[in-house]
């Protein structure tokens, strides 16, 4: 019933959707790699599939590309069902983690190989090659072999190979993970710029949540072959659907503090027990699902930036509590402070000029307006 409903809702959208994945399953023998995947994006969207290794994100990308076949379900690209359609006929282009440059061909040949296979006229090949080479600033490298290029240059060539295709959909499989930190940031910006100038539709796989946050217009977080949450970066960051998403996205990651919530009349209080100090009791101004009255164990999710220095002038709605400081980690623009609540390490993000000393007690401001509350058993978000 619910599947049918979903389909009904999805169908009218397909005309507009550049990519629609419906009820996709994939298994190897008895092992299920992907379970009931439903994703749709519109033209110009930058979809990032993110999750830890083994979550099935690369398999999903391969299914989209037609490099692997799905067990059940349908993939549509540009409204056309891709069942039984081979990769070359899907009007896609793909960039790989290892770049997968053809080692014996020059850069130019690498880029034009696809056109040559498809029988594009020589002149047209040359024109597109020049265009792309200029765009990516690799025109001086065209006669080199891949082995004579640096990592960043290879990355550009790989993108060039995808760009000449001018496809409906670009697929990127962890394209930046073989680069060093500095290059990775540079190339990230480059990809973002390309996306903006070309207005291309992109599906991008990464395990790096920062890449996901910075690049995506839409993020799909996956774990064990199941979509945990799909949404805009903002939604994913601020309203994580469950504890997994909350923990996976953001750096440093969200503090997940065991606590208990209590309904006292109209007001809701959340208290954190501490063995050596008195409990912290905080007001919470939203409804918690399943808490009508009485007491309930919950997990309180608080991003480090929502725990700050109580002396911070910008605090408006913070509630103050004293905590012992375990570790102080100055990071230039901010200072991270680690303390201990309910037996868990909790990170707070303070101003760089905060004067705080490890081993002493300091007072912190807790901003619960952006807090999440999770059900401890299932990990699902309940507020």
């Amino acid at each position: 019933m619910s599947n049918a409903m979903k389909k009904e809702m999805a169908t009218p959208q397909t005309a507009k959707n550049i990519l629609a994945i419906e009820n996709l399953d994939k298994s190897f023998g008895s092992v299920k790699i992907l379970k009931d995947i439903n994703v749709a994006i519109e033209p110009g969207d930058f979809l990032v599939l993110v999750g830890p290794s083994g979550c099935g994100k690369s398999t999903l990308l391969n299914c989209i590309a037609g490099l692997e076949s799905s067990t059940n379900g349908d993939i549509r690209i540009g409204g056309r069902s891709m069942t039984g359609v081979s990769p070359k006929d899907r009007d896609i282009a793909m960039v790989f983690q290892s770049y997968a440059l053809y080692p014996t061909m020059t850069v130019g040949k690498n880029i034009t190989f696809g056109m040559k296979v498809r029988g594009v006229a020589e002149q047209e090949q040359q024109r597109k090659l020049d265009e792309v080479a200029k765009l990516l600033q690799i025109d001086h490298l065209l006669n080199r072999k891949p082995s004579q290029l640096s990592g960043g240059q290879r990355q550009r060539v790989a993108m060039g190979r995808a760009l000449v295709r001018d496809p409906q959909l670009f697929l990127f499989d962890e394209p930046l993970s073989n680069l060093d930190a500095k290059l990775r940031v540079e190339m990230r910006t480059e990809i973002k710029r390309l996306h903006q100038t070309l207005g291309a539709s992109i599906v991008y796989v990464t395990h790096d949540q920062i890449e996901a946050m910075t690049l995506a217009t839409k993020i799909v977080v996956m774990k064990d072959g199941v979509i945990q949450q799909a949404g805009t970066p903002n939604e994913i960051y601020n309203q994580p659907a469950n504890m997994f998403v909350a923990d996976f996205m953001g750096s440093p990651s969200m503090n997940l503090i065991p606590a208990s919530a209590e309904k006292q009349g109209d007001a809701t209080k959340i208290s954190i027990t501490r063995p050596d100090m008195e409990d912290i009791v905080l007001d919470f101004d939203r409804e918690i699902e399943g808490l009508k009255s009485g007491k309930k164990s919950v997990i309180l999710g608080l991003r480090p930036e929502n725990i700050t220095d109580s002396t911070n002038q910008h605090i408006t709605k913070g509630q103050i509590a004293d905590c012992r400081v375990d570790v102080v980690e100055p990071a230039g623009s901010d200072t991270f402070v680690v303390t201990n609540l309910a037996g868990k390490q909790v990170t707070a993000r303070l101003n760089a000029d905060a004067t705080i000393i490890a081993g002493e007690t300091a007072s912190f401001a807790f901003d619960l307006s952006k807090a999440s509350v999770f059900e401890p058993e299932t990990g699902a978000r309940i507020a």
Partner: protein
Amino acid sequence: MTDHSMNDHQLDERANRNRLMKRIALRLGLYTLLILFALYYLMPLFVMVVTSLKSLDEIRTGSLLSLPREIDFSSWGKAWSGACTGIQCNGLQPYFWNSVLLSIPAVAISTLLGAINGYVLAQWRFKGSNILFALMLFGCFIPFQVVLLPMAITLGALKIAGTIPGLMLVHIVYGIGFTTLFFRNFYVTIPQELVKAAKVDGAGFFRIFFSIFLPVSPPIIVVTVIWQFTQIWNDFLFGVSFSQAGTQPITVALNNIVNATTGVKEYNVDMAAAIIAALPTLLVYVVAGKYFIRGLTAGSVKG
């Protein structure tokens, strides 16, 4: 104090000199050992060459390991074009061409098949492909004497008994295991993404093989060709069993010269013939030996 430092300095120098001496001694030992080994490896060849240059009288009377008193090349000419391999006394020459005719296509076909099998088994795996690979590999280890008789029956049934194509088929079949192993182990080191990229680019199975995989394969092709050529050129057992008059390979002719049973033995001709028969493989090793090691380095030794 100064005395001390002087001593230290001298000690240092002595230590340095000692170290240097030790290094030189080590190096010397190393080269000596290497040369001793080289002598061990060269000894049979030396005996063969020396004997081939002696006259029959000298062989009968002198020591087999001594240098020839007079160098006599006549046995080489005789081995090539005059020694009796039966009623005909045309030397190895006609058989040499049989072997060439046999081994070049057989090496080429078995290498190509190995390449494409290896390509499938490394890059286009399917369910059960590993088991199939294992089954193919097992074929490398079958002792050839075991298959002689059933092979004879089969070749007869295929109507290619005694022909060069028949002999070629035998060599190809029993070469596939090794050639597939070489190529498969080489191709597994190539990232699978290459195939994916090419698929997305629109290339099919054969296009990917011919324009991407084959061009990266020279190192392993060298290894495979050397291996197969050596095997096929030197084969006697299949050659003697599955050839007939007119299709016999050079090893059979060499055997006829060397292993004559109840006639007068001409050892100088025997040895010259042996060296002539071995020349092509020797040449391959001398010329391509460098690439052989390089090819092995390039992946065939890795699991």
